[in-house]
Structure formats: C-alpha cells, structure tokens
C-alpha cells in the first residue's frame, strides 16, 4: 500500500474519534448515575398530571401555565387525572412539593445539560434549615 503510514495513521485517528465516547465514559472516574428523584419532602403523592406525562412534557405545562396566568389572568388549573384544582404558580404550587430545586430540577437538567432560563427570574426557594 502506497503511503501506508499516513493511511493507517488516519484510520487510527478515525477509530479513536469514533470510539471516543467509550473511552471517555470508561476513563471518567465515576460515571454519572441516572438521576433517581426523591419523593416530595412534604409527603405529597401525586403531581398535577401523571408522572410519565410530567417527565416528558413538564416544560409544555409550565409554558401553558405561564401564558394563562400572565396573559389571560386565569389562575386555576384543573388536573385531568384527579379533577383537583391547582393554583398555576411555579413558586407556590410546583415548588411547594418540589421544594429542593438542587435535588429535583437540577439533577436531571445537569445530567442532560439542559439550562432552562426559568431561574434567571424566578427565585428558588431557600434551603430549608
């Protein structure tokens, strides 16, 4: 093979780049565990919507709440699962149960490198002493 050194070198580089995630994961000291979320500290058992829906779509729900509250002045949200009414408020409703942002919101967001701008304005609840 002509220019064998260069070609083999290129192929080695190609293989290294392609397998880099495997190396990276194997070599980083402790793998990031898949976040397991603690139940809400206040003992609440169910969310405004089913858990599976909330996991995938909570951002849509929050956006819808935001628009309803800010733009139409509507504040009550009736859950489609249990028919209960909730105040559409991030700080008063969501954070009432999920009072620990660092262990609730941030775990998954850090795991997935998601940086929602919510906390640029909304104030996270103070660490409970």
């Amino acid at each position, binding site marked *: *093979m*002509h*220019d*064998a050194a260069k*070609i083999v070198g*290129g*192929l080695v580089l*190609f*293989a290294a780049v*392609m*397998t880099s*995630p*495997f190396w*990276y*994961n*194997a070599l*980083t000291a402790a*793998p*990031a565990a*898949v*976040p397991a979320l603690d139940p809400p500290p206040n003992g609440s058992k169910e969310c405004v919507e089913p858990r*599976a829906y909330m*996991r*995938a*779509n909570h*951002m*849509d729900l*929050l*956006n819808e709440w935001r628009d309803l509250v800010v733009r139409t002045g509507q504040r009550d949200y009736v859950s489609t699962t249990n028919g209960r009414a909730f105040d559409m408020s991030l700080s008063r409703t969501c954070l009432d149960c999920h009072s620990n942002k660092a262990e609730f919101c941030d775990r*998954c967001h*850090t*795991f*997935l*490198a*998601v*940086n*929602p*701008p919510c906390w640029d304005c909304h104030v996270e609840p103070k660490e409970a002493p």
Partner: protein
Amino acid sequence: MGAVISLVAVAGLALVAVIAVAVGDLRFLIGVVVPGIAFVVFVVGVACRVVRWGRAAVPFRIPTTCGQQRSLPWIRNEELDNPSGPLGAIGRMAGEVLLFRSLFRNHRVELSHGREKVSYVASKYLWAAAMAFHWSMLVILLRHFRFFLDRVPAWVELVQRWDGFFAVGVPVVYLTTVVFIAALLYLLLRRLVDAKLRAISLPTDYFALYLLLGIAASGVLMRHVEKVDIVQVKAAIAGWASLQAVTPAGVGGWYFVHVLLVSVLLAYLPFSKLLHAPGVFLSPTRNLANSNRRVRHVNPWNPPIVGRTYAEWEEEFHDKLKAAGYPLEKE
C-alpha cells in the same frame, strides 16, 4: 420512480421499528443490538474501503490545477491552486475539506432563451446547500454528545448555547435543525424538479436523502412534538456507550425509528456514495503537490532498474574476451 421506491424503503424501515417495538417488544434488539452491529459495520467498513482505496495505483502526480505553477521568480504562482510543496497541498486540502472549494467553482451551462448562445453561469446553490448540510450535521453530531457522554463536557454546552441562541420554543429550536432540514429539502427538490437531474438520479440518491430526512424528522418530533422522557433516552445511550446493555424503557416509538434509521445509515454508509470523506484525502489531484518539473517521480511498482557498467561486463567476460583477442581496458 426511484424517488418512490426509496421513499417506500425508508418508510418501511420506520414501520419496522414501530412494529418491532409495539408488537414484538424488541426494544433490546433495536435499541442496543442493532446499533451495536451497525457501529461495528461502520467502523470496519470504512477502514476496509480506505485500505482498498489506498491500494489503488497512483500513476503520477496529476496537476489538474487552476492556477499558475511555480516557475520563474518574477512570475506569481498560485500556491493554493497549484501547490509547489506539502504546505500548499495541505492548504488546498483544507479548502476542499472545510469549504468544498471545488464545488464552489461549480458552473452551469445555460442556453439563452430565444438566442442561440451558450453561457456558463456560476451556480452556487449546490455549494451553499452542501455547506449548510454538512456543517449543520457536524454541529448536530457534536450536540448529540450530551447523550453519549456520562458527564457532559463544557464544550457541548457551548455548542448548544450558540446553536440555540434564538429563544424560540421550549425546548429551544436549534438553528442547525432548521438549516439541516432546509438544506436537505433543497437537495431533494433539485433532483425532483430539474428534469436533467431527475434523469441521472438513481434510487440510492433518493434513499440517502430520505434516510437523512427521516432521521431529522424523527429527532424533531421527539424534541418538539411528541416529547419523550430524555432521562431514559440518555440512560440508554450513555449506557450503550459504556458497554452496558440498558434496554431503553419508557420512551415512545419515535426513538426506535430514530435509532433504527441512524443504524441503517451507519451500516449503509461504507458501501455507498455517502462515504466520500476519506476519498477527498486520497484524491491524487488534491493531495499531491505539483512538483513534476522539479522533483523526480518514480512509480513505486516499477521494477528496479539494474544498471551495469562496461567495467563490470568486461570483468565478467574477461577471460573469453581476452581469449578472443579483444582489446581490454583492464589487463
């Protein structure tokens, strides 16, 4: 016709994924095994193809160039278009790899309407679409490292932040998503609309485009429409990239469509026209400096030329020559 066949093929693949997950419960197969096989096929396939290309004969330096060769000191040479040494060749190669320089020079022949006149018109649309497609695909690939890597490095977040600069939608719509799909649609439409291109297009040409569009569409659906629980998605993908078999659980069918189409693309790539990246590096018209007039070029497969001097010949036949009475230089 080719367009329809390919569309049916890609749609069939997507359907296979949906059915396999919904009916056969083959999540492990499609989510872990198939991508694994596809990945190995891809890496080994590319290596084999490159080695095959590497074995091809390179007969001579081929100076297909567009500029003045280096000659006399007072004549300006075009070092990039007609490199005299390795540095220029690297520059020309970089222009090719990063900016698709030869495609930039694409021209279209046009017959002016109503007049019998041919004109050569620069046509940059194909170049622009190719650049848009390839560069946005690179950014999209880099963005996907957030799923492959256990801990997301800062550079991935940087790419995400600038790609998602414009705050539209939640999660934010990435610029490259829009550019990628727009470029692919242009590349597809140009084959479908132009009769000349339609005539020379093969089913495989369409297949690649539909496959990429299918991958893009299923990804967009997962991100913006039928959202999936991406914690589970990352758990599966990062697990896969840590050589642990994690069956993706709790994610919808679009994920498996996405994964199957990507697997097909990976496995298909080494055997198709889509594998042209290493070829650029191996192109003799791109990777060789045009130094034919200054450097002696010897073909490596030529048999060794064994020279023989008169002195050696005389020595071998010394006795016979002497016996025959020939005059000898050496007694």
